[in-house]
C-alpha cells in the first residue's frame, strides 16, 4: 500500500472524485452566489449589474433584515448559554459517574435523534393556545394570566423557538464535551485527589484547560449552527407573524423563492457566509490553546 501512496498520481486519482463533488456542489456555487449577489436578477431574464447596491440597501433600508439579524444574534446567545455552560455542567455531572449516568446520557441525547420537523410539530402543539401543555402548566401553578399564543405573539415567538433549539441540542454538545473529558488520563485526577483538590478545583484546573481544544471546535459548531439555522422556524412559524421570527436563512429563502429577488437573496447568503467565517476567527482567538499530548 505504501508503494501506491508514494505515487502522486494515485493520490490524485483517489482525491479527485471527492474534490470534484466538492467543487461542483460547494466551491462553484459559493463563487456563483457571490457573483449574482452583485446583480438585480430573477434568474430568468438577464440580470442587471448593480455592484454593491444590494448590500447597501440591506443594511440601510431593510428593517426586516435587521430584524432577522437581531433574531440570529438572540439565537447565538441562547445557544451559547445552553450549549456551553449548561452542557458543560451536565457533562461534568455525568463525568463524575453518578448513578445511572449512561441512562441520562441517552435521555439528554434523545432529542437529536428526532427529526427537526417532528420536534417542530411537537412543540407547536405544546405552545398551542387552546390545548397546549405550556398554558395548561402555567394555569396549574397559578400563573394563568401569562398564558398566551406563544408562537402567534410577535413578542414571544422568537424566544419560544430559541428555547426549543436550546433544548434540542444541549445533549449533542454535552456528548462532545463528555467525550473530550473521557480522554483525560485518570491519573491526573488521582494526583489531584491526593493533594486534596476539591471537585471544583479539579474542574477548573484540570478538566477545563484540557478540553479547551474541543470547546473551541464546539463553539464554532454552536455559533455557525445558530447563524444558519432554518428548520424549526420553517416548520413552526415560517418566519411569521409579520417576519417576527425571521432568521437570515429563512429571509434569504423568502427573498429568493417568494419575491424572486435572487440577487438580493444571494447578498444575504454572502453576509451569512461572512458572519460564519468571522465567528470561526473569533472562536479561534478566544480559545487559543496548544495541542496537548498525554
Amino acid at each position, binding site marked *: 500500500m505504501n508503494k501506491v501512496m508514494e505515487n502522486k498520481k494515485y493520490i490524485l486519482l483517489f482525491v*479527485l472524485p471527492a474534490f470534484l463533488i466538492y467543487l461542483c456542489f460547494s466551491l462553484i456555487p459559493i463563487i456563483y452566489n457571490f457573483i449574482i449577489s452583485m446583480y438585480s436578477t430573477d434568474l430568468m431574464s438577464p440580470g442587471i449589474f448593480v455592484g454593491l447596491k444590494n448590500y447597501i440597501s440591506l443594511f440601510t433600508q431593510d428593517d426586516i433584515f435587521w430584524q432577522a439579524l437581531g433574531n440570529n444574534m438572540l439565537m447565538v446567545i441562547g445557544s451559547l448559554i445552553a450549549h456551553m455552560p449548561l452542557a458543560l455542567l451536565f457533562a461534568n455531572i455525568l463525568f463524575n459517574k453518578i448513578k445511572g449516568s449512561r441512562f441520562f446520557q441517552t435521555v439528554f441525547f434523545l432529542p437529536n435523534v428526532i427529526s427537526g420537523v417532528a420536534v417542530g410539530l411537537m412543540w407547536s402543539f405544546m405552545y398551542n393556545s387552546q390545548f397546549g401543555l405550556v398554558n395548561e402548566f402555567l394555569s396549574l401553578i397559578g400563573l394563568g394570566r401569562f398564558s398566551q399564543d406563544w408562537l402567534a405573539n410577535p413578542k414571544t415567538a422568537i424566544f419560544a423557538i430559541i428555547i426549543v433549539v436550546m433544548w434540542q441540542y444541549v445533549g449533542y454538545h454535552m456528548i462532545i464535551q463528555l467525550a473530550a473529558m473521557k480522554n483525560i488520563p485518570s491519573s491526573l485526577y488521582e494526583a489531584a485527589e491526593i493533594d486534596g483538590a476539591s471537585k471544583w478545583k479539579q474542574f477548573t484546573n484540570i478538566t477545563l484547560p484540557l478540553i479547551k481544544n474541543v470547546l473551541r471546535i464546539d463553539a464554532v459548531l454552536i455559533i455557525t449552527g445558530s447563524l444558519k439555522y432554518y428548520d424549526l422556524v420553517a416548520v413552526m*412559524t415560517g418566519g411569521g407573524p409579520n417576519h417576527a421570527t425571521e432568521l437570515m436563512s429563512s429571509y434569504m429563502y423568502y427573498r429568493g423563492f417568494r419575491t424572486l*429577488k435572487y440577487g438580493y437573496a444571494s447578498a444575504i447568503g454572502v453576509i451569512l457566509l461572512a458572519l460564519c467565517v468571522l465567528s470561526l476567527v473569533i472562536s479561534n482567538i478566544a480559545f487559543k490553546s496548544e495541542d496537548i499530548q498525554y
Partner: protein
Amino acid sequence: MKRFFTVVLSVLLVGSLLVACSSSNSGTSNSGTSNSASSSSTEPVELTMMYNGTATDPTLGLVEGVVSDFNENNTVNAKLTLQAYENEQYKTKLTTLMAANSVPDIFFTWELDYLRPFVEAGKVYEIGKLLDADPTWKDSFQSGVFDPVTYNDKVYAVPHAKSICVMFYNKKIFKDNNLSIPTTYEEFLNTCQTLKDKGITPIAMAAPDAWIPAQLVQQIADGIGGMKIYNGLLDGSVKWNDPAYIEAGKEVQDMVNKGYFPDGFLGMKSANSTQLFKDGETAMYFMGCWDIATVTDKSTSSIVDDVGAFALPAKNPQNNNILVGSIDQSLAISANSKNPEAAAAFIKLFGSQKYQEEFLYKTGRLPTTKIDIDKTKVSSVTADVLDISSKVVGLTPWLDRAFGAGEGVEFNNKCQAIVGGKDPASEFNALQKFAETNSDK
C-alpha cells in the same frame, strides 16, 4: 495485482462520477425533433402537468377525472401525467423549475403579477395564438376573463373559474337568533355584536396564513374607497398608506378587539378555523367562493344544508358589490413544451362545457365559459354565490396576485400584524417604504 486493483477502483470511481453528470443531459437531447413526430409515430406524446392541490381538496379528484378522460379519448395521441403539490410547495417548485428552464408542459398558475415575471422572461407559451386559431374555443369564454392573463395584448393562460370573496353564513344560527342578512355595514357590525352577546363567535378566521386576514382588510377597504383605490395602486396614484387602507385596518382591528373572531385565531391553522364554521360553532366565515366545496363536503361538515352566502356590505354604500375577486384555475403552457398543440388540446377539454358544469355542480366553481346554468342542480349556497356574482359591479383581484411576490405578500404580512395588534397607520407606512425600495432590487 494490488496495482491493478487500485487502477480499476480509481477508474470506477471517476467513471461513476462522469455517468452521474451526463445522465441528466439525455432527457433534453431530443428537443429538436418536436411536433412532426407526434402525428406520424404511434408512440404517444408524453405530457406532464403540474397542478396546485392536495388530496383533501375535492377539486383535485375532478382534475384527475379530466386527465384520465384525456388519456383515454384524446385525438392528438398524447399521454398526460399529473403532478400535484401543496400550495407553498407548488410556488417554490414552480419558481425553481422556471429558473432552471424545466417547467412541465402544462402548469397551474395565478394571474396578473404572479405570471408576469415568467411571461416577461419568455418562459410561457403564448396560448392566445391557439385560441385565435380556434374561434369556437375562444368564443366559448365570457368577455373579460382573459384580461388578467393578458400581457402586451397577448394571452398567456386560460382561466377556468371565477372567484369572489363572500361571507358564508349559517342560516340556522341566523334564524335562531332572528337575524337577517345585513344590507349595510352598520347592520353587519350589529349582527356580529348580537351574536357575540349571545355567546356565539361571529366570524371564523385564521391569521397564520397572512392572506386570510388580508383579504378581509382588502374587502373592507374596497367598501371604503371603491375601485379607485385599487386602480390607483396599479397606476401609482394611490399609496399603500392610503387612508382607506388604514381605516380598513382599524375596522378589522376593532373587530378583533371586540372578540368577533375565535379565541386563539392568531395561531389557528386555517383548516381548524374552517372546521369551526363547519361544526356550526361560528356564524359566519369570510372566504373565496372556492370553499363552497369544503363547507358543503358531507363527510366533514355538519351544516351542509344550512350554508348561505352574502356580499359584505360596503362602509360607503355607493361601493356596494365591489368585491375582492378574480379569475382562478388558470392553466398555461410552458415555452419549452415540445407539443403545445397537444397541451392545448387538454386545456380545451378542461374548459369544455362538460367539465365546466361538473366543476360548478360538484364544487361550486363559477364558470368562465358561457354555459347555461341549471339552477336546480346547484346547491343553495352556490345559487347565492351565483346571485352575488351577477350583481358584481367591480372586482379587485387579491393584492398578492395583482402585485405579486413583493408588495402584495408584504401587504398580507402587514394585515397579519394589524390583527395581531400593531398600529395600522405605522404598518402601512412601513409597507409604502418597502414598496418604494423593493422595485429596484
